């Protein structure tokens, strides 16, 4: 695994000058993932903030080959690209020694919700590709609507907090576990705050033969209602509180990559974010307790799966 010195010499494959917001977690996730790939790579992306802000014609921020197709089909599109690579190589139209890697990016909306079928199909078929979800917990590009990844209690434009509603009433779905159930060789959860862990995981994901899935916590300052310069800090709190545990599942074996001695209380993660402001109003203590108990339960379950105390 590369040291920071080595990484600093690698070229960023997503250039600056794109129009993502200052402090956007998505571009950090992409750059760190791409630091984990050696040699030529073809990238794809679902529609969402990442795509619209990096490809505004006639410009492009991608130094790699890149394809955007639609919102929900980044995985299926990349399946086709990968299949073309296999056959053109077999037919001798691409040099036999040319190794190309394939990565599809999608936001949580394009991955957990509308794109789940396409992702599931691609993973089940076993294409040699990495799928990366940059999870910012809502449909940010269309203006902060709730997604299947939106945390319990978060106020979004389609699950607003008001007199009768207290933000999203449902728990978020656990996509990482859904992906693990596909029996693919490599599944991991990472965060932009833990760059070394993320780059290492990306390297492993690119190294396996067959499909790999990375779920990356990528805060959106706009949607989370935190200052632009708080991205890394808030992501770190997500990890330290157990809201977003860092772990990997290698050939079915669970391994927690970061074990805090004791989890920080989840309110440390919730409090700085404007989208959870209403949870701290008197009368909503129960909601905070529910949040905490769900996080604790998931963490305990994960520890059991990983066989640690």
């Amino acid at each position, binding site marked *: 695994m590369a040291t920071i010195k080595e990484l600093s010499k690698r070229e960023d494959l997503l250039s600056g000058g794109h129009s993502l917001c200052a402090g956007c977690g998505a571009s950090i996730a992409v750059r760190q993932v791409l630091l984990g790939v050696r040699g030529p790579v073809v990238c794809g992306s679902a529609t969402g903030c990442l795509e619209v802000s990096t490809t505004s014609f006639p410009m492009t921020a991608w130094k*790699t080959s890149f*394809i955007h197709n639609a919102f929900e089909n980044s995985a299926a599109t990349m*399946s*086709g*690209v990968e*299949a073309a690579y296999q056959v*053109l190589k077999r037919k001798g139209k691409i040099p036999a020694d040319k190794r190309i890697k394939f990565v599809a990016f999608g936001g949580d909306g394009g991955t957990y919700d509308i794109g789940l079928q396409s992702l599931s199909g691609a993973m089940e*078929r076993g294409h040699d590709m990495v799928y990366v979800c940059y999870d910012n917990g809502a449909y940010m590009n269309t203006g902060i609507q709730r997604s299947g990844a939106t945390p319990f209690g978060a106020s979004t434009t389609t699950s607003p907090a008001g007199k009768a509603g207290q933000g999203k009433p449902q728990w978020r779905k656990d996509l990482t576990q859904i992906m693990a159930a596909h029996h693919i060789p490599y599944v991991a959860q990472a965060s932009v705050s833990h760059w070394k862990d993320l780059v290492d995981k990306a390297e492993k994901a690119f190294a396996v033969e067959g499909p790999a899935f990375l779920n990356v916590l990528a805060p959106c300052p706009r949607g989370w209602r935190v200052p632009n310069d708080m991205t890394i800090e808030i992501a770190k709190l997500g990890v330290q509180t157990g809201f977003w545990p860092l772990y990997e599942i290698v050939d079915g074996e669970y391994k927690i990559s970061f074990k805090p001695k004791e989890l920080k209380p989840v309110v440390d993660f919730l409090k700085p974010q404007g989208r959870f402001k209403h949870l701290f109003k008197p009368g909503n203590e129960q909601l905070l307790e529910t949040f905490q108990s769900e996080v604790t339960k998931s963490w305990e379950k994960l520890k059991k799966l990983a066989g640690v105390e």
Partner: protein
Amino acid sequence: MATTIATQKPVAMTGNGGCALAMKQINPDVVAAYPITPQTTIVEEFASYVANGAVDTEYINVESEHSAMSASMGASAAGARVMTATSSQGLAYMWELLSIAAAMRLPIVMHNVNRALSGPLNIHCDQSDSMGARDMGWIHLFGENAQEAYDNTIMSIRIAEHADILLPVMVLYDGFIISHAIDRFEVLEDADVKAFVGERIPERALLDTDNPMTFGPFVMPAYYTEHRYAMRNALMKAKDVVLEVSKEYGALTGRTYGLFEEYKLDDAEIGIVVIGSTAGTAKYVVDEMRAKGIKVGVLKPRLFRPFPAEEIAGALSHLKAVAVMDRADSLGAAGGPVSLEVASALYGVANRPEVQGYVYGLGGREVGPDLIGSVVEDLQKIAAGDKPTTAAKYLGVKE
């Protein structure tokens, strides 16, 4: 010039079997497909070609038509020669991507075996599926029988990949009537098909990683119109390319194709415009009517997108009355899509013939010579001075 026509052999096969055979002979790089009646037997047969090593195609068993088109697009952008197939709801499920595929200028060739759209659920033939996707920038080539479906498949590869075009092509033919009925037709030898279609040499490809390129960008108003204009221009050019490729194919096979077929139209007074298998029945009816001295002919469109409006208007302009038969309705419009196209094509013609639209054969409703005979009778009245109705007439409706 003495042309030598390639050796061909007669086969007795279904339309789908013929198309699967054409696919085998083309040996595309990638096929991504999902089953739907009446298309299914194409991909089943093709899967067995793959399983038996008759082709070295990468066959992706996708989980839906949406992914079939998505994967086809990825593979085509990667630089591969790509084919797929669908029908009805499958095509509808791809709808979102059809226009992106054309905009990305991906020369995918797709069989769409025409079938009614739901609802109500119906698996039988009409053309409402592909007609609903007619404005997406794809080239639409219709065939009348298994021979034409087979021939169009091979020609479509060349048309789609032509440097001036680079657009996806839909090879269309009638569900069950053509897809499942056994027909006798001529097929080429593998080597001749291989030589005719050649190799795909993409100018831009994702796998050309030394020359990275962004496919499918986000486009602001400042450039969107220009993209669509480029698509329109390429699509309009397809007319010439269809003729050019068809001529070359004619020299190889002895079967010549144009933008449409004219049957006894030269000296006709009245004419029937009809696409697909019903054109065969119409020609039979024309022969019967001609024996009775009625001067009727048929025009069978082959290329529906781009619509060769000028050429079709030219071929119909000498008639007194034209019946346009649609196996699909454009709900809420005056008539089916073909009748609207023909009427608008004739609009600028001085002394233009009267146009009467008909909607027939929906959801696989039987279309026999009697029904077409009734259209001819109707048309004779219009030629004699009766006014056509603005709204298309529905044929054979049980009231």
